[in-house]
């Protein structure tokens, strides 16, 4: 990969200042960014490591909301969210493999917005809030399509806040070589509302399956969605599965998720 300047600030303010350089990029766990740089698909002039900023790390719960610092790795979430929010802990514990989970972070996953990343499905289903150094975004405003978010170039995800559901479940239909979800569905049940977040399926990236959410709000059982169909138009088609196959998976996985969370 091309060389770059490396800095490791100890505060968010210093990191934001360091990111003012042209083509500077924040570096969190690097589990996507390093492979991307090796392929020369990215060649930042400067990397600003976020791992020296203690305030970006940790999991806490208050008033029914789980707040996860942006630089918290997946293994930590899998462990520390286990009792308060087992659905999210399960999701975190299935990302990549054990070595990847010890480095990769929630902030990196959210900011990169890979169309098959796991965390965005939970953020959408839960109506999470993405907190940055300068703003707070509703998840539905934050994710704007493949690898595209509301973030400005020098903006850092400092935390993600999840309202903790009464029950939740993540169904990941794994692409066995990459261990990314071929399609993944996060189901979250709250008093009076149900969230269904789908990743890996749509050409527009993560989305909420609104028809299922409406049907499940009145009747939280797999039967409630049995009459619904997911449009295959706009679904990703590749050698691993057609758009119709992914559309079918969305419904099947939602049903399984509801059953498991009931």
């Amino acid at each position: 990969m091309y060389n770059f300047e490396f800095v490791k600030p100890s505060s968010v303010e210093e990191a934001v200042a360091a990111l003012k350089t042209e083509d500077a990029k924040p570096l969190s766990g690097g589990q996507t960014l390093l492979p991307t740089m090796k392929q020369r698909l990215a060649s930042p002039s400067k990397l600003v490591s976020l791992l020296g900023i203690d305030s970006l790390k940790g999991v806490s719960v208050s008033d029914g909301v789980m707040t996860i610092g942006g630089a918290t790795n997946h293994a930590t979430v899998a462990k520390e969210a286990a009792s308060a929010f087992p659905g999210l802990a399960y999701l975190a514990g299935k990302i990549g493999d054990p070595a990847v989970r010890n480095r990769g972070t929630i902030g990196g996953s959210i900011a990169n917005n890979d169309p098959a990343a796991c965390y965005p499905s939970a953020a959408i289903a839960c109506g999470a809030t993405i907190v940055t150094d300068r703003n707070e975004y509703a998840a539905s405003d934050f994710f704007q399509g493949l690898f595209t978010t509301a973030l400005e170039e020098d903006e850092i995800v400092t935390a993600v806040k999840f309202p903790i559901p009464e029950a939740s479940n993540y169904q990941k239909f794994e692409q066995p070589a990459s261990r990314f979800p071929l399609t993944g569905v996060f189901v979250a049940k709250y008093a009076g509302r149900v969230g269904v977040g789908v990743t890996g399926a749509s050409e527009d990236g993560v989305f909420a399956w609104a028809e299922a959410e409406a049907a499940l709000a009145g009747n939280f059982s797999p039967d409630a969605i049995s009459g619904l169909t997911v449009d295959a138009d706009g679904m990703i088609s590749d050698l691993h599965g057609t758009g119709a196959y992914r559309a079918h998976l969305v419904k099947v996985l939602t049903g399984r998720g509801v059953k498991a969370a009931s």
Partner: protein
Amino acid sequence: MKVTMKVNGRQVSGEVEGRTLLSSFLREGQELTGTHIGCDTSQCGACTVHVNGKQIKSCSVFAVELEGAEVTTIEGMAAPDGTLNAIQAAFQEYHGLQCGFCTPGMVMAAAALLKDTPKPTESQIREHLQGNICRCTGYHNIVKAIMAASGQPVAAVAAE
């Protein structure tokens, strides 16, 4: 840039570029060539080492990020007199390798698993090894070796 870290209990330092990967720092800077680079794309796990007690892929982290860290490589697993540790001895006993290229990563991954889960089930072992690829063994004897290293009977390991 200068970076200082502890590798296998020994304080080491070296001049690195920002882009120097931990795998290069270990192999080229410290001449610890037991850490293998299989794919260099974060897929294969041959380069697995421990950083502050946690397994990571050394091809996917910059050396400069690990200022002050404690790193353990495959060279740090056997006793100073060369006596193999329990995991290494079990790999030998149960023929958990053929060409041996993936073995350093397998042993480091197994060590991380057994630290947190001293008596793993067969499925826990297989799940834990998801990031470590072996092209020879079909994994069967690797799983047996890890069962044996954890003091559990290997006869129950199902042939797949």
